[in-house]
């Protein structure tokens, strides 16, 4: 094709165009092309000029021929977007547009086609569309709507979701006052009004949990958020989100209800319940635990470890337990432990410790349940004491039964023997002798029975009430009553008791005890000394101790110690020894809750210590 010089210069101009431009004649043949166009589509001018556009782009829609033909008639139209794979096989999108090509005489000689690379723009648009869809999706799922208020136009806009939340039809047109009127009267409506007011005055955004009444009259929890919009520092409106949180709130309410139920249960259990973290610090305590640890409220105990609460020894023991439970994952169940708090108060607990595990199965704390069994333990101790006392009394009873049977048997044995003799005896003199023996035997039996009765009376009258008695006066009276006996033996009685000292006793027992010890002390006097007996009173915790010391014969306690207070035991060859005195005395002292001790040295004397129980 021949190109005239004019065209040639035009062609040179077109070559330099910074756009992708191509000139075609009315036969779609390419007349000119910018270098950029040639470069972009990887052609060279020699190979392309004069060829049909549709040859070079075989993918071009045939429809475009019509569009171009219209252009040749003077009607330029956009052609649309075309996909193209470049030399690197990258997908590119181009937008084609055309204008009529006029010659100097305003004749249309072809079309000028300009091509724009819209790959990036298209990608952006796609991305935007995607984001839009996602947002819509998201807001549908999260039930979050949008809204806007334009102050200038006094126009409120709700998105579809906002409308759905309000349960109004899609064509509903909200106004500012009707929008606010949806909020439940009272707190919710006041709060939103205040929020808008504050946003207006101070520019503060809001985000509050409120209740609305929907168009169908349903009560709903929503999260209303908004912020003021400014244009050139002037408030032009508000925008925000509107979220339906009814389900969450109700679920929350349900959870709270369950939590409250659990808390009520834990707090009212008659057991100490607590939860500790991995460092043995308390993170939950119930009311019983607070009470038993003397805390006014749980805040006093939360965050505290064993060393803050208990004495060192107890704290160490408890911490070792905690560590053992959390490292072995083996619970401690119903173990009896004694704890001492900071003030030294001891409590016995039946305690269980159960490890609490995290999702990986590692202990991150423990649950403790303890039952205070101090009272039960105390009762148990009392019961044990009672059993001890009972078994002791039982022993005494058996002992007494043996004594009774032995003493009665010895007399009845004599009777039966003597009666047998009497039956076969012919000698009158011998008969008289046996009869006399029978007589004395019966006298002995009577005396024995009287003695046994006396002992029995002491042991059965345990409940006789004790009285406060002036000991000094009592000793004085006893001394007076024994005056003749004391004078006969040239004895000296030293009453060292202060004249205001009193003891709690059964008065007639005290008389009997004093008479017994004083007469014993004189009866078993040392042959080479004048008898001297001194009485003193000591006070000790729970007891008043009366000591009665003599300077008499003394008793070999190694030999007779365990029999000293037995019935019918005598240790000196004294014709008046009955072997009843000390036995009865001991019974009288014990029946008053006291005890008796003795110290003695043969040839020196004896000290009896009588413990009077002052407690009960």
């Amino acid at each position: 094709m021949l190109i005239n010089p004019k065209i040639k210069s035009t062609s040179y101009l077109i070559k330099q165009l910074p756009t992708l431009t191509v000139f075609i004649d009315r036969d779609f043949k390419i007349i000119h092309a910018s270098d950029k166009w040639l470069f972009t589509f990887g052609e060279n001018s020699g190979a392309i000029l004069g060829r049909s556009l549709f040859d070079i782009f075989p993918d071009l829609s045939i429809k475009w021929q019509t569009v171009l033909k219209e252009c040749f008639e003077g009607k330029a139209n956009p052609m649309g977007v075309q996909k193209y794979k470049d030399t690197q096989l990258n997908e590119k999108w181009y937008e084609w547009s055309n204008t009529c090509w006029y010659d100097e005489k305003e004749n249309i000689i072809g079309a000028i086609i300009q091509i724009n690379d819209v790959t990036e723009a298209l990608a952006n648009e796609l991305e935007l569309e995607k984001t839009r869809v996602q947002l819509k999706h998201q807001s549908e799922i999260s039930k979050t709507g949008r809204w806007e208020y334009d102050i200038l136009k006094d126009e409120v806009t709700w998105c579809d979701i906002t409308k759905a939340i309000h349960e109004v039809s899609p064509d509903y047109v909200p106004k500012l006052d009707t929008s606010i009127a949806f909020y439940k009267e009272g707190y919710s409506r006041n709060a939103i009004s205040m929020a808008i007011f504050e946003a207006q005055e101070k520019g503060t955004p809001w985000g509050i949990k409120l209740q609305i009444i929907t168009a169908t009259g349903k009560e709903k929890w929503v999260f209303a958020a908004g912020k003021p919009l400014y244009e050139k520092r002037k408030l032009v409106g508000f925008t925000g989100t509107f979220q339906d949180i009814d389900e969450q709130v109700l679920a929350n309410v349900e959870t709270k209800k369950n939590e409250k139920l659990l808390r009520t249960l834990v707090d009212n259990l008659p057991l100490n319940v607590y939860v500790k973290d991995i460092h043995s610090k308390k993170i939950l305590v119930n009311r019983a635990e607070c009470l038993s640890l003397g805390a006014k409220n749980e805040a006093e105990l939360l965050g505290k470890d064993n060393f803050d609460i208990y004495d060192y020894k107890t704290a160490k023991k408890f911490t070792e337990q905690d560590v053992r439970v959390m490292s072995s994952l083996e619970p401690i169940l119903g173990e009896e432990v004694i704890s001492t708090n900071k003030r030294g108060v001891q409590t016995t607990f039946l305690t269980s410790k159960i490890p609490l595990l995290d999702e990986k199965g590692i202990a991150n704390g423990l649950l403790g349940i303890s039952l205070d069994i101090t009272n039960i333990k105390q009762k148990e101790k009392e019961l044990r004491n009672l059993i001890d006392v009972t078994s002791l009394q039982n022993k005494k009873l058996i002992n007494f039964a043996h004594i009774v049977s032995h003493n009665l048997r010895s007399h009845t044995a004599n009777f039966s023997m003597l009666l047998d003799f009497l039956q076969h005896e012919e000698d009158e003199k011998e008969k008289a002798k046996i009869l006399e023996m029978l007589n004395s035997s019966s006298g002995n039996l009577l005396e024995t029975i009287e003695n046994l009765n006396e002992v029995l009376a002491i042991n059965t009258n345990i409940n006789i009430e004790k009285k406060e008695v002036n000991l000094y006066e009592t000793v004085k009276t006893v001394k007076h009553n024994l005056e003749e006996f004391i004078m006969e033996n040239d004895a000296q009685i030293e009453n060292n008791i202060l004249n205001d000292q009193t003891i709690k006793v059964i008065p007639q027992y005290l008389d009997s005890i004093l008479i017994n010890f004083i007469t014993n002390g004189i009866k078993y006097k040392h042959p080479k000394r004048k008898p001297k007996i001194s009485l003193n009173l000591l006070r000790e915790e729970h007891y008043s101790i009366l000591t009665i010391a003599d300077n008499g014969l003394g008793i070999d306690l190694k030999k007779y110690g365990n029999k000293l207070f037995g019935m019918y035991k005598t240790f000196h060859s004294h014709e008046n020894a009955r072997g009843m005195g000390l036995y009865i005395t001991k019974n009288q002292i014990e029946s008053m809750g006291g005890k008796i001790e003795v110290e003695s040295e043969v040839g020196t004397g004896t000290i009896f210590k009588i413990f009077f129980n002052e407690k009960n």
Partner: protein
Amino acid sequence: MKKIKFIGIVDDDPITIFGIKKMLNSVVECETIEDYRNGKIAFDSINKKIIGNEDIPEIIFLDINMPIMDGWQFLEEFLKLPIKKRVRINIVTSSIDPYDRKKWECFKDKTHHLITFNNKPIKRNEIAEITKVA
């Protein structure tokens, strides 16, 4: 009638002593019967006889409950004495405490002397039996 040289009675009850003596007289011929009012008197007397190389009782009637030194204490000491001959010791007690029987069994097994246990009242035939064996 069998003849026995020496019988001892240890008891604090004069009626029992009278009874045993009376029954002994009717079943056996005895040269000497000595009675002691408690264990200590009995032990001292026998110990003195051993030292003086005199005869000691072949048969002893022993009460348990006595003042100063009781039957058990007497046995304890008596068994320590250097006596080659086998002495027959008859415990005669009114005690029916099982503890006393156990104690007797204990003593019985640790000596070459013959120790028997009788409850009061002791019968004529029991005394005859005792003296026959001895």
